[in-house]
């Protein structure tokens, strides 16, 4: 069914400028229905700005957006009934209880009292909020607050849910639970767009867009992105990892180096193992180089490295 349905989000040439700063630069994006689509990028890469434009909160400087068949920003008001938005910062009321927050949201979405009652009870069960119903939101823990925020965002059963770094303030256990909840929603037919700067979260998405400095630098399924990696990932063991790292970073074949414990994880152009080995030996360092499986971080490093080179770096 998902194959025939039109995409949930289509954006072409989407740009947003704030004065001299270009926050989002000519972004092309297609998100299919009922998928969990990830936005991966460092802080300031334009993730939040893009999400705000896709919600209709922010008018784009240029480009076309169609969300759930609505053209933005023209149909923003009609769209607001059909989307849910979970902000980066907790944006429900700290001085209202869990129940009062949800009641308020139900009223804003014009849900009839009886239906609202039933829906909120359902959300209490789903997100384990029942025993917290009379607690003020400001006194909840990070994980509890996040469950409340999610409940608030899906209260009106939106077709599309946009989440801006939803797990930035919660512990790993809560994050795992949270992602399970997101997949439940996708299975029930909702489309989800989640921004994150965490690799393990990005890896869980059905499809992924990597953003850097407001530009889309790669997109596809996590597996496809890893396969299409324009280099190979090597693990290098040597006695002086800090010195070796400094040396490797200067080599043109090397796209990125990171120290993991006592080893170095190096992303280099294909078939350059020997050249790296020679370079280290010439500097008097004995090294053992073994190829390892690529991960999303390597994809991210490679994609952002290419962009910097194009920019004349």
């Amino acid at each position, binding site marked *: 069914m998902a194959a025939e349905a039109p995409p949930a989000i289509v954006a072409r040439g989407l740009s947003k400028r704030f004065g001299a700063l270009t926050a989002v630069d000519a972004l092309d994006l297609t998100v299919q229905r009922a998928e969990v689509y990830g936005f991966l990028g460092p802080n300031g890469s334009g993730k939040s700005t893009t999400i705000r434009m896709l919600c209709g*909160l922010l008018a784009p400087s240029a480009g076309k957006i169609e969300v759930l068949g609505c053209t933005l920003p023209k149909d923003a008001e009609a769209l607001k009934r059909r989307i849910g*938005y979970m*902000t980066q910062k907790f944006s429900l009321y700290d001085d209202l209880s869990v129940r009062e927050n949800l009641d*308020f949201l139900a009223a804003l979405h014009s849900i009839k009292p009886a239906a609202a009652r039933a829906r909120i009870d359902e959300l209490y069960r789903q997100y384990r909020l029942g025993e917290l119903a009379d607690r003020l939101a400001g006194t909840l823990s990070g994980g509890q607050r996040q469950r409340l925020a999610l409940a608030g965002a899906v209260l009106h059963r939106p077709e599309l849910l946009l989440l801006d770094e939803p797990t930035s303030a919660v512990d790993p256990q809560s994050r795992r639970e949270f992602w399970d909840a997101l997949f439940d929603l996708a299975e029930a037919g909702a489309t989800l767009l989640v921004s994150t700067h965490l690799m393990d979260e990005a890896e869980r998405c059905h499809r992924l867009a990597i953003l850097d400095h407001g530009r889309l630098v790669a997109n596809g399924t996590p597996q496809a992105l890893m396969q299409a990696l324009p280099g190979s990932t090597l693990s290098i063991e040597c006695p002086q990892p800090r010195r070796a790292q400094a040396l490797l970073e200067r080599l043109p074949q090397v796209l990125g180096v990171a120290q993991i414990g006592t080893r170095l994880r190096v992303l280099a152009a294909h078939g350059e193992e020997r050249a790296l080995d020679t370079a280290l030996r010439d500097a008097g360092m004995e090294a053992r180089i073994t190829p390892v499986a690529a991960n999303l971080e390597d994809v991210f490093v490679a994609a952002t490295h290419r962009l910097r080179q194009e920019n004349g770096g």
Partner: protein
Amino acid sequence: MNFARLLAVARKELLQLRRDRLSFGMIVGVPTVELLLFGFAINLDVRHLPAAVLDQANTQESRELVAELASSQVLDLRKHLVAPQEVAALLRRGEISAAVVIPPDFEERLQRGDRPAWQVVVDGSDQSVQAAARQLASFPLATLRNGASAAGNEVEIVNFYNPERKASINTVPGLVGVILTMTMVLFTAMAVVRERERGNLEMLIATPLSPLELTLGKVLPYVGIGLLQVTLILLLGGLVFGVPVRGSLLDVYLAALAFIAASLTLGIFISTVARNQFQAMQLTMFSFLPQVLLSGFMFPFQGMPRQAQWLSELFPLTHFVRLIRAIMLRSASLSEMWPELLPLFAFTALMLSIAVARTKKQLV
């Protein structure tokens, strides 16, 4: 515009207000404290001014005059001097605020009536003392003139509406306006800015709630609170200071409603300019002071320079002070006071349209 959504916002606002103990206390605390402070402290009929007497005539008439002045209680004649230089010294040191000087030829002057028979020397650096001196100057000296010129150039002041010359009669109605200005503008400005500062606004814009529904919903509870404060001031004013409501009570509330609307829209306007609650507070104070000083609440409107008068005509408080004094003290009806009511409506309409235009801009 969806009324149910507007009410949902109003309900939420009341819930939050109930949890905010300090603000909740302010709703009742501010009017009570202000009323008592202003009612007791602002007292324009000065009594018991420390004063001295320099009686150079020392005749029966002059002693009668001194006795009569003493019985008026305006002056507290605590020192009897012999040398004119002492007057200046005592005034300079602040030991006395006024001195009664009776020249040696007092009786002769009194008989001829061509020159002032006696003098009151006052510390003119204090305005309230000056006012008291003017009061003394019209002191009825009929007994001293043996009835000869008694009816002639004597000016009789007939005091309507406030025969006991109690300042609180005049202060309390104006205070309704001052308290409403302070609480209404501040509460609204803070409430709207708080929503933005805490990040709630971003969540709200993603819902079907419109900016107008949000704004009106947020200020609706404060209309009720404003009327509550009016009631409190009227009750306390009546019980503690005996301030009457001579006109129709309905007119008082209708006038208050028009003024509350004007103050709330000013608060909304401030909220569109201020970036955080601190700025909202500063801007409120910035708008509050000129209103209070120029409205005629503290200083007589007629005494102000022309430019200040023009400026004060722009303020809602100026018109409200006139309205409420007219209705409460002179039993005027609202319908005959429409020239003061219209500026309030105009102010409300202007502020609201600016605020709505600015809010739209911010949300896109």
